């Protein structure tokens, strides 16, 4: 479904990504972790073309992200993305947040879009808040709306960039629950997260990044059982202590 081949990226002289190669199969859940500044966000943003890269290529459902001929907006409309800071549109109500791209990008009818939005809102347990504005919801609620917003586009895969790291601890689980449920339903997911509990529960594979490179790319059990690299070991021991 997503295949990343030898991707490298520079910001001027600074090399953010070094020859990254990996694959996410249909229905697979892959967790990406690594220290701050290691390039996780950059890599995941390359997958839907939010960040350009200079060499290598990424193929999503048979379409090359790097090719200048690719209709990026169209590709993005088929890949859902969830951000660290939710990024709901503050000037629109929850209903309109859910409906906007369905109407403007997919060309759905307004009532159809709203109905679909409401159904998804119900699924994340927030149908009572449809008429509110993002600023009136808690962080965890906003993030669940953001997930529903992405799902409303009927994505073939979902990208998550630290979806819980801006949340207060008591709200993390309500978001993770939604993600676990999604994984069980067979959604293809690529998640940057440090929630190792989530990884243990649903991930098929774990990727560890450091200084822009993929240092480790292993099955979940192998990764948690015996990570090969020393850096991954130190990293794991640090975050598992918490």
């Amino acid at each position, binding site marked *: 479904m997503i295949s990343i081949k030898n991707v490298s990226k520079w910001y001027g002289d600074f090399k953010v990504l070094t020859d990254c190669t990996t694959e996410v199969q249909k229905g697979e859940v892959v967790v990406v972790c690594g220290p701050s500044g290691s390039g996780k966000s950059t890599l995941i943003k390359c997958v839907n073309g*939010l960040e350009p890269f200079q060499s290598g290529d990424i193929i999503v459902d048979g379409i090359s992200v790097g090719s200048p001929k690719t209709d990026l907006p169209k590709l993005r409309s088929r890949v859902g993305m969830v951000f660290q*800071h939710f990024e709901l*549109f503050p*000037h629109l109500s929850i209903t309109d947040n859910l409906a906007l791209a369905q109407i403007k990008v997919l060309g759905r009818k307004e009532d159809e879009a709203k109905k679909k939005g409401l159904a998804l809102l119900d699924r994340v347990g927030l149908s009572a808040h449809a008429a509110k504005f993002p600023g009136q919801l808690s962080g965890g609620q906003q993030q669940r709306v953001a997930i529903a917003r992405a799902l409303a586009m009927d994505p073939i895969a979902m990208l998550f960039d630290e979806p819980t790291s801006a949340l207060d601890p008591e709200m993390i689980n309500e978001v993770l629950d939604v993600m676990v449920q999604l994984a069980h339903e067979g959604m293809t997911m690529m998640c940057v997260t440090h929630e190792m509990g989530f990884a243990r529960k649903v991930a098929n594979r774990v990727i560890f990044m450091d200084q822009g490179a993929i240092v480790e790319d292993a099955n979940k059990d192998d990764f948690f059982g015996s990570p090969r690299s020393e850096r991954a070991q130190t990293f794991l021991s640090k975050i598992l202590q918490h």
Partner: protein
Amino acid sequence: MDFSSLITAMPGLLSGMMLTLKLLVLAIIGGVALGTLLALARLSNNKLLSTLAGFYVNYFRSIPLLLVITWFYFVVPFIIGWLTGTNEPIGAFYSCLVAFMMFEAAYYCEIVRAGIQSISKGQVNAAYALGMSYSQTMRLVILPQAFRKMTPLLLQQSIILFQDTSLVYAVGLMDFLNSARSGGDIVGELHQFLLFAGLVYFIISFGASTLVKRLQKRLTV
């Protein structure tokens, strides 16, 4: 003071005020529209586009409005003549309107630019991630938020524009100030008429800026 002549002159003053307000409203609409396009150009990744827009802004911000009004009064009829091949005169009103729109656009541009820059990059990413195009992202997500934040500044600039419309005196347009001046001249009471005009300008500007300040406070808390 005797106000009877002011009362007799009221219809003339009113029609002057109508012209001032018409000019103001059209110039605000045109100026904000053009200013927004300029701001988008200044922020675009296209080097040529952003340099040109930057030059436009610096250029209009460094010459007097009165120069622009006078120049356009002389020049716009020529340009229209060249463009259309006809010799039809366009009135002073339209040459002034074009001058105000183009001049104010430089000032509105800087306000809009700051407004757009105050919206976080994450909002752009989120809109793109949903498959929106550049123009959808700007129209549906970024500009609506930016304009909400910028409203007080845009209004303040428009109050300045309201005062500046009086400069159309230079090309003999009968706006509010010029109606007052000529009305006063006719009856030999220039003092009263000018003071009255000043008072009216003051009340409108002061009232409007007090309201804007209140709005600003509401928006910041």
